């Protein structure tokens, strides 16, 4: 408590971080400085003295790059959080980095000649394409915060999934892209600093020019409009500046997580409220946060210095965010676009029956029709030799998809955040971490051990979240923030594994991409049983979910027990997510796609939407699994990835048309 009370001014964390960074940097530099070497030789090194060369060309530019990249990310995060009015918004939300990553991977694989001299421009082009996609998607709604956020999230997920497909099939050749994406700050010359400096200066000046409009954009739309602001035009400008900042930094140092989220949050909680002050302190804190983290990485024993700084920021930032979450004032959170725009189904029950029939048909087709060594074949029933191999996968795909979609629908209703997907709960990160740890420590883990390890990880996270949710101030969106913090930890582990080039990586990649490959019959049945149990829970929770989106006060007044309902709903989501993740990997997209498709199809009331979400999510995964197993036989595309890559644009088109 004393710590929190002490932070009254943003200068407090800034000075603390600066002291830490300075101390560590001094230690690291002096450690390299040979006896009797003049300090000036750092600036003008003697080319025959390796120590001087190292200081001048690796340590010094690294500090400068860390300062600049951190400042840029902090600034970009602050701008985005203002215009999107969402404290969860950060540069990664926009999909800019993911777009750059995807195009780099494509170019690396298909025209590597371009990369020799055009890596920066390739990444820029990818970032630009991602931004254009977001703008195209949200233009119709005047770039409203909700639409931009949602489009950004979808573009980000989509690019991520497309990159994952490329990675899964080509990871032998994408090492350099992994390493770039992991967020290393190491430098071998002054090129990176020279690249960043002029671009960041121009963009920072633009941000200063946008100060007044940014203040107004932080208000709600009607007040901003009444003050005579052309909302769309300024939002576009601010968005482009933030995107350009992100792209510039991503291009030169890769994907640095967390700084863009944590720096503005830290600045705001420690008292920087006015726009100008907030931007300035966000940039300052971002710069110092990244530099301090980077110096910590440099102080590690040699073996661990290869940890990517971009991922370590997440590791160190997570506890910081934990401390600050309660003090973080949520800006008006984006609400699910609902109401009059969307039509309601006249006979929703009949529509549900049609959906169920489609699923039965799909399951039947998935076990009967398939590509094989002799081409396509059709065989009905259990006399088929391949029946035993197909049904567990089909059933697991359906159940996994349905469980995640149900969890997604519940989460989105209870938090009122359309970005809420089961993945951000942190439970799937917990499961991932459990499996990763097992894979790295045990010699040849069996499937059963893998499931146990995943379950242990998932339930550890669940216990943590339940414990936290008892404390005052941890509600809805804030618990999601914890999930984000945890998922960045698992992201860190993956980045380290990739950088270490472990041959066991390919197995992990396949599982992480949502594959039903290893599912055993009893697991598929268990998943179906879990789904059935969860669906049976829908009637009792229906009323809560009808009232919770209307706001805290309305729900309280209508007699919804807030703490109890929150705990129960979170536990339900967490159990569903854990089950699905452990069995078929984190198929995050169906958690978004199911609920949104159900809503767009006209299932409005909570109970019906939940059931429809589950059925739609399950059907999508079922179809994706079948296509994935057959389309490029004998190769297989994991269901989760395929659903994202094929279903993503479909969902985008639907959202675009309806909004």
């Amino acid at each position, binding site marked *: 408590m004393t710590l929190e009370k002490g932070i009254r001014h943003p200068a407090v964390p800034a000075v603390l971080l600066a002291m830490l960074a300075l101390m560590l940097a001094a230690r690291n530099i002096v450690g390299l400085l040979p006896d009797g070497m003049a300090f000036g030789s750092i600036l003008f090194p003697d080319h025959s003295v390796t120590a001087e060369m190292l200081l001048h060309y690796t340590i010094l530019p690294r500090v400068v790059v860390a300062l600049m990249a951190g400042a840029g990310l902090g600034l970009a995060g602050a701008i985005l959080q203002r215009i999107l009015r969402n404290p969860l918004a950060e540069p990664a939300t926009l999909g800019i980095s993911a777009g750059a990553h995807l195009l780099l991977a494509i170019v690396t694989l298909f025209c590597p000649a371009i990369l020799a001299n055009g890596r920066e421009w390739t990444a820029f082009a990818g970032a630009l394409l991602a931004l254009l996609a977001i703008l195209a998607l949200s233009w119709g709604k005047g770039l409203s915060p909700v639409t931009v956020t949602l489009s950004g999230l979808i573009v980000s997920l989509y690019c991520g999934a497309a990159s994952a497909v490329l990675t899964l099939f080509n990871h032998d050749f994408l090492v*350099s892209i992994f390493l770039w994406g992991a967020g290393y700050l190491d430098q071998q010359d002054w090129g990176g600093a020279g690249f960043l400096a002029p671009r960041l200066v121009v963009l920072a000046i633009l941000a200063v020019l946008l100060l007044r409009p940014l203040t107004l954009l932080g208000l709600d739309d009607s007040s901003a409009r009444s003050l005579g602001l052309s909302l769309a035009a300024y939002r576009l400008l601010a968005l482009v500046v933030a995107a350009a900042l992100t792209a510039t930094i991503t291009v030169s140092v890769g994907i640095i997580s967390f700084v863009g989220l944590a720096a503005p949050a830290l600045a705001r909680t420690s008292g920087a409220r006015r726009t100008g002050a907030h931007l300035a302190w966000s940039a300052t804190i971002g710069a110092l946060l990244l530099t301090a983290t980077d110096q910590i990485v440099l102080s590690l024993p040699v073996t661990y210095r*290869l940890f990517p700084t971009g991922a370590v920021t997440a590791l160190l930032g997570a506890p910081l965010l934990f401390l600050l979450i309660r003090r973080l004032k949520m800006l008006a959170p984006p609400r699910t676009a609902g109401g009059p725009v969307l039509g309601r189904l006249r006979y929703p029950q009949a529509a549900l029956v049609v959906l169920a029939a489609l699923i039965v048909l799909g399951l039947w087709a998935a076990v009967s029709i398939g590509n094989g060594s002799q081409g396509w074949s059709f065989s009905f029933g259990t006399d088929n030799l391949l029946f035993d191999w197909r049904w567990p996968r089909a059933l697991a795909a359906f159940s996994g998809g349905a469980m995640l979609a149900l969890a997604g629908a519940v989460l989105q209703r209870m938090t009122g955040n359309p970005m809420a997907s089961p993945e951000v709960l942190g439970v799937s990160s917990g499961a991932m971490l459990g499996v990763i740890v097992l894979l790295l420590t045990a010699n*040849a883990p069996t499937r059963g051990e893998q499931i146990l390890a995943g379950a242990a990880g998932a339930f550890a996270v669940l216990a943590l979240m339940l414990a936290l949710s008892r404390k005052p101030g941890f509600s809805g969106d804030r618990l999601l923030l914890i999930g984000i913090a945890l998922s960045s930890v698992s992201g860190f582990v993956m980045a380290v594994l990739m950088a270490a080039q472990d041959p066991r990586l390919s197995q992990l990649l*396949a599982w992480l991409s949502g594959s039903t490959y290893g599912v055993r019959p009893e697991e598929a049945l268990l998943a179906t049983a879990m789904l059935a149990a969860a669906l049976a829970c829908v009637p009792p929770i229906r009323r809560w979910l009808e009232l919770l989106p209307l706001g805290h006060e309305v729900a309280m007044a209508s007699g919804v027990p807030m703490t109890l309902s929150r705990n129960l709903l979170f536990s339900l989501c967490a159990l569903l997510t854990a089950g699905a993740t452990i069995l078929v990997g984190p198929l995050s997209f169906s958690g978004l796609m199911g609920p949104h498709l159900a809503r767009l199809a006209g299932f409005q009331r909570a109970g019906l939407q939940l059931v429809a979400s589950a059925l739609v999510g399950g059907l999508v995964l079922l179809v994706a699994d079948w296509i994935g197993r057959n389309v490029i036989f004998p190769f297989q595309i994991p269901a989760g990835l395929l659903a994202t890559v094929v279903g993503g644009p479909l969902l985008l088109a639907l959202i675009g048309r309806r909004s």
Partner: protein
Amino acid sequence: MHRRTFIGGASAFLFARQGNAAGSNAIKTIALNWPSAQNLLALGIVPLGIPEIERYARLAVEPQAPANVRELGLRAEPNLELLVSLRPDILVLGDDLASMRERLGAIAPSYLFNPDQADHSDRLANGRQALADLATRLNAGSAFQAFTASFERELDDARQRLQRYDGRPLFVATVLDDRRMLVFGRNSLFQSVLDRFGIENAWTGFTSRYGHAAINVDRLADRPDARLLCVGNERVVTMDRLLSAPVISSLSFVKNRRIALIPEVLFYGGLPSARRFSRLASLALGSEEYR
């Protein structure tokens, strides 16, 4: 000359066995990862299928798989329905698919082949033992004898070529990107081969259980007297950029171009990979300029 004779002999041997494999009583095998494929082929046994064959030909290169071997799909997820329809007698797999062993048992008995033991003993001895066990399981004892004899012969030839090597310590590394390399040290397959040649490894730092470590290129500055052997020639452009960074280009071994480049070799997989490495490395390092 010697090398060509050997490859000719090996392929004649290989085709002889393949005819045999088509016969009715030969054991029908399937390799579920590359080391298994390499070692089966080294015994002259042609598996019915290998995962990611095209990439195998590009990255593992030898022993070459004949054209009639089936593609099984990704190494991480070889196609189960295809495995069922190929009706193999035995599935040879590595640690990476160990979690699938139980399910694979429904298709055919599985054999866990692991030439890369994680302990710190000699990798060549481990690889030889694993291959011997595999040969015993598949009744290919004579093929094992023939292979190890040719392996020792090749190693001797390589040592011969390196007799007048100047004795500089050697970094063995693969270029990852323009700032980083994967360097092979203690506990690596390449180290075991270097030990046979009596060449000192310049990298004495940390290595993973596979004997490699990803390092920043500036760590090469620790041993400016060394020589660099780059494994894998797919990223020559990147290598040139990597070596042109100020710190690195100021090192004496880069200035004097004490750098050799050899084609792709798998850094795990036991004797077949070791054989390829010893031949390529000795040809590159035994050339006139390094004496």
